């Protein structure tokens, strides 16, 4: 509704438009539910409790990272560094585990948060485009990772018996801690978005940054917090992964930023910023994970189909989103 001078008091709320809006917001959820239902009937082994919790567990690492990315994208930015920071977090956690559980937790979160903070500073204060800054962050974090792992030659192991292993390998009520952590994190994320000043400010900044600034909103601080949190969460995802695998694998996270962005966009967050939901991102992550799981179920399928299908679904979803947007506007 930008190019029109005539503005009716209320935009049309016709049934079609409302349906379109619903589909826009919940489209990924519909696909997810459909995919789960179909797979349950087609593959005997899909619907088992074991497999479903496995999907949830596998998805939890990506989900943590996607939560941070959701806020970044809603603020109108992008964070390409999360894959590298994820890997760095894992390596630091495994390294820190040699010195105790606290070190395994605090070292990665501090370092990854610091990387996010610096990126946020350069973006918010320096006014550089997030795309470029976080691209540099991607290189920087990977370089740092290589530096502390003898150019990737050393893979730190979490010592046997370390309490740190429990974090991702243990569980409660038969459900792994990572799943609980993700649920708690997303609940907190939803609360932050809908019930704090910071949440509205993120949307305001993503919608119209100059306007937010003129309105006296703390634009720079909001971006700082957003990128710092993205760094912390990416590091935390890596930390969980290190706990899960009991080691700091140096080659993880390559291309992960793109997977995370896909998940967030699938979940209905607009890449232009200013709109989105936290829950949608979780749905997006689960959808990608279900696809991966189904490909594995079909033994004869080459695992490369997973990439092909994920990419195709992403293209279809964004195309439908565009189409729905035009329907909604009518």
């Amino acid at each position, binding site marked *: *509704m*930008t*190019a*029109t*001078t*005539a*503005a*009716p*008091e*209320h*935009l*049309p*709320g016709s049934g079609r438009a409302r349906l379109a809006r619903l589909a826009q917001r919940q489209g990924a959820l519909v696909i997810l539910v459909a995919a789960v239902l179909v797979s349950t009937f087609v593959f005997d082994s899909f619907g088992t409790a074991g497999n479903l919790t496995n999907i949830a567990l596998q998805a939890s690492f990506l989900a943590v990272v996607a939560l941070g990315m959701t806020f970044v994208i809603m603020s109108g930015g992008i964070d390409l560094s999360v894959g590298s920071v994820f890997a760095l977090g894992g390596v630091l956690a495994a390294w820190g585990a040699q010195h105790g559980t606290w070190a395994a937790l605090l070292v990665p979160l501090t370092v990854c948060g610091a990387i996010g903070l610096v990126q946020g500073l350069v973006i918010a204060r320096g006014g550089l485009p997030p795309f470029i800054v976080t691209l540099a962050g991607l290189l920087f974090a990977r370089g740092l990772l290589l530096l502390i792992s003898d150019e990737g030659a050393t893979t730190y192991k979490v010592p046997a018996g370390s309490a740190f292993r429990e974090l991702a390998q243990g569980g409660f009520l038969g459900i792994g801690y990572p799943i609980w952590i993700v649920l708690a994190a997303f609940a907190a994320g939803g*609360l932050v978005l*809908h*019930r*704090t*000043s910071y949440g*509205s*400010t993120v*949307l*305001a900044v993503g*919608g*119209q940054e*100059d*306007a*937010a*600034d*003129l*309105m*006296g*909103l*703390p634009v720079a601080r909001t971006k700082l917090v957003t990128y710092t949190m993205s760094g912390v969460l990416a590091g935390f995802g890596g930390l969980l992964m290190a706990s899960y695998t009991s080691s700091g694998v140096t080659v993880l996270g390559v291309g992960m930023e793109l997977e995370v962005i896909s998940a967030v966009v699938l979940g209905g967050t607009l890449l232009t910023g*200013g*709109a989105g939901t936290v829950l949608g991102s979780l749905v997006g992550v689960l959808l990608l994970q279900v696809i991966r799981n189904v490909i594995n179920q079909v033994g004869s399928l080459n695992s490369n189909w997973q990439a092909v299908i994920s990419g195709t679904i992403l293209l279809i979803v964004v195309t439908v989103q565009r189409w729905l947007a035009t329907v909604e506007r*009518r």
Partner: protein
Amino acid sequence: MVTPTDTARPPSTGTATVLETEGVTKSFGGVQALRGVDFHLAEGEIHALVGENGAGKSTLIKVLTGVHRPDEGSVRFAGREVEFHRPAEAQRAGISTIYQEVNLVPLLSVARNIFLGREPRTRFGLVDTAAMNRRAAELAGSLGVDIDVTEDLGRLGLGAQQMVALARAMSVDSRVVIMDEPTSSLEAREVATLFEVARNLAGRGVGLVFVSHRLDELWELCDRVTVLRDGQLVHAGPMAELDRVNLVAHMLGREVADVVRGGTTEFGDTHRRDREPVLAVTGLDVRKRLHDVAFTVRPGEVVGLGGLLGSGRSETVKAVYGALPVRAGTVSVDGRPVRANSVRHALRSGVALLSEDRKAEGIVPDLSVRDNIALAVLPRFSRAGLVAERRIDALVDTFVRRLRIKAAGPHQKVRELSGGNQQKVLMARWLCTEPRVFLLDEPTRGIDVGAKAEVQALIDELAEQGLAVVLISSEMDELVEGADRIVVLRDGTVERELSGELLTSAALLAALAGAGAGSEEHDDE
């Protein structure tokens, strides 16, 4: 830095100065935007700030609101010298600004927009939604605005959004509210509400600064006026003591006699109207905007499209030009039908549209004057996929001279030109296409008075040369003096047509009045 706190407020006396500048000077890269401006705003007054584009209004506002810091001079707020470093500081101190474009978050509720950044909290530090909605509803009620505060802002009309912006300003207990062209996208009825709210605020002792290009509005609303020209203050005094002619004279820096002689517009007499129509529009229908719009334009004729905002004026010319999806209706030029929904075919048929939104739909800021002018003829001036540079150079040269475009040269970037010259560049762009029909949507909006006169004279000249012109203008004088006939639209249909004897401001006003009275006339001549 000194920021006055709420407790430091002196009692409201109604005449005390709340915000003032003393000798404020500001320059940007060698260009003096403000030269020693003394500006005084009293409590409870509505103060008009006027001047041509480039006179320094925006810069002054930005100095007052902490976007810019003055090079010299001082800003005093509530009796204390202040130095704001960011808009947030000015706002916290009690100076709110409402901008031309509505600057809120469409996807958040009205209440959240009003309290954005200052939401009431529960004891857990979360937003207290219930309290926020209640206070927002109270605030809206006190402004006399009836809206559901829980609805997403983006679902309200622009006028209602502007009210929300005002409510936001009030929610911070602002002592000064600056309104930068708040009415430019509002309908008359919404303007009336806005003015009521503004007077309401003034009644509570808030000082308001009001900027508008619609001169009529100034007498309707404002108590005092400050006129800027070339970054200097040229006049300050009560609004009532200044008539329209003198105001324009101050803005232009010309003698009063000159202004009177030329009237307020540069339009000449009526044009020939005995030939067959060039443009014929019948049964034009655009979903939810236009129903069965029909009119014709003869060569050499200027047909005005009258109507309040939202009546479908811009939509009509856009639909004719193929830039808006049309459901039904025909457009023909010289008897040949123009394909619907195709800008390129409309252009080829000899239709050109000067869009009202110069920035978003007109200029390509980083391209040169030359390339901007040549943009629409680029496909035409190409052979084998290559640009015919010499022919374009010659063409551009012709139009730069003919329209007296003031630029350092054809290769200066358009973004560096003044609004008036940008508008001339766009007119040149369309004239290059040798149109038979020229649709002009608010051709003089937002440009300084001097350029305005030149554009008006040019429109006259074009009509004399046989072009069929459709003119949209929010300024009644411009429409009445410029057009040979006025087609009045209301709610997307043709209400009536005014010509000959009936072509007067009074008749136009009457024709518009059905949907609620337009602004009053303030012709003091």
